[in-house]
């Protein structure tokens, strides 16, 4: 345990934790790619925890980017911005949202809530979508309006034809959209219900649309870490849904994905991909979060196993039949980084390096010491498959002492000029990352 560990628990407990700590955290670099290092699982009396204190950004402070790239705040003072979406006319939508709030079920939940609050996770979400219009592309939006208000923990957002779909935590809503509109006041029409309360542990509903616009794909997270709230509340959870855009008919497209926080189509192969947040509390290097192609009907292991057939003994009764079907994800992102944003680069202009591949935002760890994540990375793709080691793109979200955090990256989008937009839900900012020399 490091000095950054959570302190409000007494010395005796620390001793217990030390006595229980079985493995030292390894180098995250060993856990990127198709064949990550997987240590033996450990069970703890007190799992490793390390959470930096959220301090936000002072005036003039920004995240860090490589030479030839610049970063500036496109909008500040938002209310927990999570996802971003660029409309065809260049308007940028910022979904401001947070968990609908859940009652503590166990004594542990009080402590877990306090731990995560330290890192800024308990801030009130705006439950709204803000529109930013930067018509001249100077990075200073001339228009900023509340586009849609009074939503219920919204997250996923996608425009198909003249309809804007917003995934609240409990339903997909459809809004008529007229190009150029800066505010929608009509209530949305419910297209399909989604699994939600009363627990709603993983509340985000990520969403994208197929290229032909006929289907929506929705990531629904599990209702627990590892079924500790019972199997009944996991019905229809930890899955990716396919929803018919017009009828709202839905079915489970793939399952066993613990928390698929972003779904997107790879532009060359039109293959659906997702980033998935894996389970906690069996070690600092277990289980790696991952990026994977999502195949129809496939089962990705949760809760019974991880990374293929590695059985999780915490689940009872076990299901060897399902473990045998569980497929290995394509690309590990290392443990507890909490990937929340996935964006294919589509040949954008930041740097030739980023022509073909995916940007992934790592919200950052709590169940690990030292910390992991807290950055935006780029994973190159060749022939529609992720390859190689990732390249850090936006860093510096953590303070230099690794004990404080200025911001945490969440949703990603490209603006009309090809600049990378990053939502930051602790700094309450949208960052615009662009090439120093436009068009280079």
């Amino acid at each position, binding site marked *: 345990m490091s000095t950054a560990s959570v302190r409000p628990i007494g010395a005796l407990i620390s001793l217990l934790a030390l006595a229980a700590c079985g493995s030292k955290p390894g180098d995250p670099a060993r856990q990127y790619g198709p064949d990550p290092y997987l240590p033996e699982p450990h*069970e*703890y*009396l007190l799992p490793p925890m390390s959470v930096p204190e959220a301090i936000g950004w002072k005036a003039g402070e920004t995240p860090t980017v490589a030479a030839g790239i610049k970063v500036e705040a496109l909008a500040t003072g938002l209310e927990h911005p999570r996802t971003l979406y660029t409309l065809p006319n260049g308007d940028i939508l910022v979904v401001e949202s947070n968990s609908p709030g859940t009652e503590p079920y166990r004594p542990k939940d009080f402590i877990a809530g306090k731990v995560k609050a330290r890192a800024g996770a308990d801030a009130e979400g705006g439950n709204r979508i803000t529109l930013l219009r930067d018509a001249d592309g100077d990075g200073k939006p001339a228009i900023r309006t509340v586009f849609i208000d009074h939503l219920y923990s919204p997250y996923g957002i996608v425009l198909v034809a003249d309809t804007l779909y917003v995934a609240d935590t409990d339903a997909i809503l459809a809004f008529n959209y007229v190009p150029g509109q800066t505010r929608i006041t009509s209530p949305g029409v419910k297209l399909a219900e989604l699994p939600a309360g009363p627990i709603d542990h993983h509340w985000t509903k990520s969403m994208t649309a197929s290229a032909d616009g006929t289907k929506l794909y929705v990531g629904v997270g599990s209702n627990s870490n590892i079924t*500790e709230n019972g199997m009944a509340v996991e019905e229809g959870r930890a899955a990716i849904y396919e929803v018919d855009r017009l009828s709202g008919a839905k079915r489970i497209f793939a399952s066993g994905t613990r928390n698929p926080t972003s779904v997107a189509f790879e532009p060359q192969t039109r293959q659906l991909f997702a980033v998935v947040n894996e389970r906690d509390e069996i070690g600092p290097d277990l289980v790696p979060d991952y990026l994977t192609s999502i195949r129809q009907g496939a089962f990705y292991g949760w809760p019974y196993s991880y990374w293929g057939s590695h059985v999780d003994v*915490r689940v009872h009764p076990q299901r060897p039949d399902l473990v045998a079907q569980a497929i290995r994800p394509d690309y590990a992102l290392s443990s507890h980084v909490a990937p929340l944003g996935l964006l294919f680069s589509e040949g954008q202009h930041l740097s030739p390096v980023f022509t073909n591949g995916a940007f992934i935002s790592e919200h950052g760890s709590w169940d690990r010491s030292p910390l992991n994540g807290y950055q935006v990375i780029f994973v190159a793709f060749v022939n529609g498959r992720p390859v190689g080691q990732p390249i850090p793109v936006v860093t510096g979200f953590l303070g230099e002492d690794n004990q404080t955090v200025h911001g945490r990256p969440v949703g990603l989008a490209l603006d009309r000029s090809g600049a990378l937009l990053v939502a930051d839900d602790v700094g309450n900012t949208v960052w615009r990352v662009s090439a120093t020399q436009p068009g280079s």
Partner: protein
Amino acid sequence: MLAQKPSDNVVLDAEPPSEPARRAIGHSRARAPLHRGFIGAGAVLLIAAFATDSMYYTTALWQWANFSAWLITAGLIITLVAVMLLLLDFATGRAARLNTGSFILVTVAALLSLVNAFVHSRDAWTSVVPQGILLSALSAILLLIAGVRGWSLAIGRASGERP
């Protein structure tokens, strides 16, 4: 309230009590050890956690494990109150010396239960099976013995009564 000692009743066995005598009644009642009832109350919750752990073990229904976690937490808090009252009992002369056997039983049970609170903070099946239910069973056995011995962790001053 706890039963009065016969010797106290003998002292008070007279006409309508005078003002000093009324104070003596209050004094005599206050001299009953304060911690004993809280030891019993905390122990009941910790023993109940073994029952709910057993239910979880046989049914795998998560709410039983949830009950166990709350019972152990509440049992530990009440036991902590009991320990503070035990110190108060010594400080105010309600207790003369430690009832060593019962004290060890309750202390070991409380320490096992503290570890068990952390075991129960794990998620799903292994929050109970096997270590959690084992710790619950051990605590329950120790506390039941302490119960047979009368829950008191101290021996009174005046009468030297057995707990």
